[in-house]
């Protein structure tokens, strides 16, 4: 299933038909805002559909379909920022209920964003030689939010797995593998729906991976897992929100990881849409 189709399938029929005609391949996100027509976000701009305005019911119908009428089960993921269905990242805005034990993360949902997942084969062709030749080094993928980190990580996992190396993927939100929607190569084992740090340790103990991949590391817990894996001699692939090395060094936890030598390479993604550029920086 392609990413656009997966995202469109989550829309209620009335919106789906219109969006299906209007959303081109350049669209990276669908935005549904209460009282506004659907918007299509591309790498450079956001354009509005000429279809009907989104009703509150549409927002709930979409979430109901995506979560299998289990908003309570998705509450944890939504509190962390987003929920994933078939690789489509669903971001939610509305009236957050705060630290409520009763866990009703949003009372009045006012907008949703559906980020369309991509499986872009060949995007790393330009840097493949450097990344895969010789000894495989631990690599950290850098890009700002929506910059293509997950797509690059997915492609890197596939390339490594295809070369016969066992890759364990800690896919916390089922975004990398999309529950089988994306091809991550023949030698890949995926552990989903488990906090990244814990999943990585589980993979290491149970699956004997040569490489472990994690998307969007950030917190202290993730940094702890990276350190532990580094100490076990496992090659790491990870992605993080940052524009460049300077951004990374401004964050104490990341800066420490770099200083400790947990990563030997940075794969930096810049640009947007079809004009993304990839380059590799060796960390001396």
């Amino acid at each position, binding site marked *: 299933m392609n990413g656009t189709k997966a995202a469109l399938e989550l829309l209620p029929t009335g919106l789906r038909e219109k969006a299906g005609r209007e959303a081109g391949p350049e669209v990276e996100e669908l935005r549904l805002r209460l009282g506004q027509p659907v918007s299509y976000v591309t790498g450079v701009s956001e354009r509005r559909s000429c279809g009907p305005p989104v009703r509150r019911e549409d927002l709930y119908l979409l979430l*109901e379909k995506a*979560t*299998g*009428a*289990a*908003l*309570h*089960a998705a509450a944890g993921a939504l509190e962390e920022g987003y929920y994933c269905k078939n690789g489509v990242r669903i971001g939610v805005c509305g009236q957050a209920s705060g630290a409520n034990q009763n*866990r*009703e993360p949003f009372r009045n949902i006012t907008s949703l964003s559906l980020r369309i997942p991509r499986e872009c084969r060949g995007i790393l062709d330009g840097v493949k030689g450097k990344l895969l030749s010789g000894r495989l080094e631990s690599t950290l993928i850098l890009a700002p939010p929506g910059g293509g980190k997950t797509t690059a990580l997915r492609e890197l996992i596939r390339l490594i797995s295809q070369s016969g190396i066992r890759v364990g993927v800690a896919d916390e939100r089922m975004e990398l593998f999309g529950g089988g929607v994306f091809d991550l190569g023949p030698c890949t084992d995926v552990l989903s729906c488990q906090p990244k740090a814990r999943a990585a340790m589980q993979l290491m103990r149970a699956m004997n991976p040569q490489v472990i991949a994690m998307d969007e590391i950030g917190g202290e817990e993730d940094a702890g897992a990276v350190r532990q894996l580094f100490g076990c001699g496992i090659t790491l692939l990870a992605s993080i929100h940052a524009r460049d090395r300077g951004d990374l060094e401004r964050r104490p936890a990341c800066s420490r990881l770099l200083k400790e030598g947990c990563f030997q390479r940075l794969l930096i993604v810049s640009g947007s849409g079809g004009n993304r550029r990839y380059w590799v920086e060796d960390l001396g």
Partner: protein
Amino acid sequence: MSKLLGALLVLAGGLIWALLSVETGRKRMECLTQLASDLERLSCELDTGDRPLPELIHMLSENGGVQSRDFFVRLENSLWRMGDVEFRSLWREAAERCSVPLNRTERYALGNLGAFLGRYSRQRQTEAIAECGKLLKKSAQEMRDQWPNRTRLSFGLGAGGALMIVLALL
């Protein structure tokens, strides 16, 4: 001779009516108990697990009470419309159309329960299920308490009615 035979037939008819009436009552009692227990299972699953509702409905449509299963089977068959039709509407539709013998109040309570499922917190969902289950259990308990009287009444009515018909015909 033919009069005697006819009288016996009418009496037998009255008793069969009584038996059927008792059997229907027993079936309804069983049904209420099973539906309440299915809802309890649903509540437990919602409370302790993260399984989506379609999975739970599937589980109950396969392993739920034999008498109450029709509700979950109907609901499961309509789940393909989810995303275009609200889950609460699908639930209500199944409650209104299922062959489970419920009275008006029970059917309304069951249909209304769908409005709480899927969208709200676990606590609100399990509270709503408990409330509906309580109503069903109460109805079942009332039927159980009245069972001996109802059985006697059914047989009395069946036999008495038949006797009156026989006398009228003679």
